[in-house]
C-alpha cells in the first residue's frame, strides 16, 4: 500500500467534513500503481458530494466542475485519470474556474 495526500478547496471540503472550511487535507491509502481514476471511483462510490461534484461514476470521468492537479501539475498534462500513484503523491482538487 501507498499513502497519498488529497487536498480539496472551499465548498468541496463538504465531501469530507460537516462544516465547510477553506481547505481540507486528507491522507488516503492506495494500492501501488493504482490510478487516480480508480481512486476517484472509490471515493465517489462512498461519498455523494464527491460523486456529484468531482467524479461521475456513470461516465467514469470528471464532472467538469473541478480542476485536478497531480504533484502541482495539471492532471491533463500528466496522464489524466490514468495517472498511476505512488507513495507521497499529492492530489489537489479546486472548484472549476469561472470568469474571464
Amino acid at each position, binding site marked *: 500500500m501507498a499513502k497519498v495526500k488529497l487536498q480539496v*478547496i*472551499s*465548498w468541496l471540503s*463538504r465531501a469530507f467534513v460537516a462544516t*465547510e472550511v*477553506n*481547505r481540507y487535507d486528507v491522507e488516503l491509502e492506495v494500492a501501488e500503481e493504482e490510478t487516480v481514476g480508480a481512486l476517484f471511483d472509490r471515493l465517489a462510490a462512498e461519498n455523494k458530494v464527491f460523486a456529484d*461534484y468531482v467524479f*461521475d461514476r456513470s*461516465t467514469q*470521468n*470528471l*464532472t*467538469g*466542475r473541478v*480542476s485536478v*492537479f497531480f504533484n*502541482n*501539475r*495539471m492532471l*491533463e*498534462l500528466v496522464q*489524466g485519470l490514468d495517472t498511476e500513484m505512488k507513495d507521497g503523491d499529492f492530489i*489537489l482538487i*479546486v*472548484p*472549476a*474556474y*469561472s*470568469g*474571464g
Partner: protein
Amino acid sequence: MNGYAGKFLRVDLTREKLTDEVFDEATLRAYVGGTGIGAKVLYDEVPPGVAWNDPENRVILASGPLGGSTIPGSGSYTVTTKGPLTNGASVSQANGFFGAYLRFCGYDGVIVQGAAKRWVYIHITENGAELKDASHLLGKDTWETDDLIKGELGRKERAMSIACIGPAGENLVRVAAVCNDKGHVAGHNGPGAVMGSKKLKAIAVDRGRFRPTYSDSKRLTEIAKGITTKLRGDGDPAKATFFNFGTLNGVTQQAQPGGWLPVKNYLTQIYDISPDDLERYSGKYIRGNFEPKPNPCWACPCHHCHMMKIPYGPYKGEIVEEQEYEGFVAFGPVTGQTDVAATAVLSNDVDRWGMEVNELGYLMGMAIECYEKGIINREDTDGVELKWGNAPATREMLRKIAFRDGFGNVLAEGVMRASRLIGGEAPNMAVHTMKGNSVRGHDHRVLWVELFDTCTSSTGTIETHRGSPKDQYGMPAEMNFFDPDNVVDFVAKAKSATPFSDSIGTCRFCVGLDTRNHVEAVRAATGWDFTFDEAVGVGLRSVNLLRAFNLRHGIGPELDRPSPRYGSTPVDGVAAGVGIMPHWDGMVRNYYQQMGWDPKTSKPLPETLKNLGLEQVAVDLWG
C-alpha cells in the same frame, strides 16, 4: 408588445435632437436586445472609414426583455460602440440599476450619435429626455459626477441611475470606461473615450414608474424564484459561494491554488505572498474587517456588492466599493502587490477615474517591468518610482493616466501602443491581443479556452465563456482543455451563449449561461414560442455581424493572435513548459471552419450569413 418597453431613445448630439425609435417585432425577435441590438445598430450605422472618435460613430446602451423584471440581476445593460483600442467593435456589460431604470422610463435602450459642441449630459425621465449642460462636471470622477447630477436634479441615491465617464473619458484615454452606480463598469475597448469624443459626460435615468408588460408574469416569477433558490445554494454549494461572497474568494479559493493567477505581468505564476497576507484576500477576511455595507444591484438577492471601509494602513478610513476578482488581481498579483487594502484602493481609483481595471493592471504591470529592467527610468516617469508593489507610485500614475499628464499620456494609449511608444524590449513585455485590447485577470496560458477566445473575439474582450454548460451543445461534461481540438470545439460550439445572455438584460453571475433557462424566461416575458435554436441564432447573428464589422473596418485574421508575452510558454507553475503557440495556426483554421468562415480571410461565408438572415452582410463582404 410584451417584454419590451417599446422604444429606443435616439440622441443626435450634433443636431441636439432627441427622438423615439421603434424596432419592429421581427427585428426584436432576431436580435432581442443588449448585445444583439447593439451589434445590429453598429453594423448598420457605422460604415467603414468612420473612426472611433468620428461623430458618426455610435454608442448603444441597451437592456433586454428581462431588464427591470424580477429576474435576479436584471439591471444590466450592454454598451456597444467602435472602440479605440482595437479600432473595431467594443461590447461590454455592466450591472447595477441603469438597465432597469431605462426600462422604467419606457426605453429599451439609447442610441447616441453625433458630437456635442459643448459638454452635455442626457437626462431621461418617463416623460421623455433632454440635454443638459455638463460643463461644471468636467474633471469630476465618476462618483462625484453621480453625486453632483443627483444633487442638482434633486434625486435620492436610488431614485436615479447614472452612466457616466470620468476624467479618463474626457481626455480620450483609450482605456476609458462607462461607469454607473458607483462601481459598475462597462469598460472593454474604451467606450468611455467614445463618449468623451462626443462630449457626452453622462446619461442620467430616473427611476420611472413605467413597467413593461409580460406575457406570463406568474411564470417569470417562478423562474426568478428558481434562480434565487439556485443562487442560495440549493443543491449547488458552488453557487452558494458566489451568493455569500460574490467573487471575493476568486484569488484564495480558485486562482491561487489552481495556478492560473497572473503574477507580475505574466512573468511568473508564483505569487510570492505570505499565508497571512494571502488570507486577507479572502471573502471571510474582507467581510469581517472592511465594515461592508450592502449595495446590491437591481433585483439581486446575493451578498455580493458592498461599500467598504479600509481598516488599516495608510489608506485607513477610505471608502471603496467592493472590488470584483478582476480588480483584486489587477492591482494585486499582476502589479506585484500583496497588501489587499492597497489593492482595494487602487482598483477603486480606476473605477472613479473611469477606466477599465484589467487594462490598467496590465498597463501598470508592463510599465513596472520596464522600470524594474531599466527600459524606462525616473526621468521618463516624471519621478514616479514604478516598482512592484509600490502602491503610492501606482496610485499617482493612475491619476496621471486619467489626465494624460506626463508619462501618463504614454500609458493612456493602452498596453499595445504604450509599449511601442516606450520601444526597445517593451513590446515583448506587453500582455494584449494583436488587435490591441488587453486581457482578463487570469493567466490564460493555463486556460487555453480563454486565450484562444480572447484573441479570436471581435468584441475587445472574451466572446465565449467556459461557464456555458457543455451538454446543451452535445459536448461531454469533462474536456481536456490542453487539447487544441477540444479548445476550438468548445469555443466554436459555445459561441452563441454569451452574446445571447448579454442580449436579454440580465447579469451573468445571477442567471448563468444555460441558454435553455434563458429561453424559458424570454418566452414568459414576450409570449413568443421562442426556441433554443432561435437563441443560438441570436448569439451567432451578433458574432457574425461583429466579425463582419471588424473585417470591413480593417481588422483581418492576421490580428487573431496573442502578443509575444500573452502567448508565451509559462516558465513555472502548473503548466510550465507547455505553450499554445505551436498549435495556433491549426487551431485558427479549425475555428474558422467550424464557424462557417473563409479559412484564409475569416470572412463569414455567404451561406453562413444567409442562414442567419444576414443577406445584406453577405453582399457587403462578398459582392
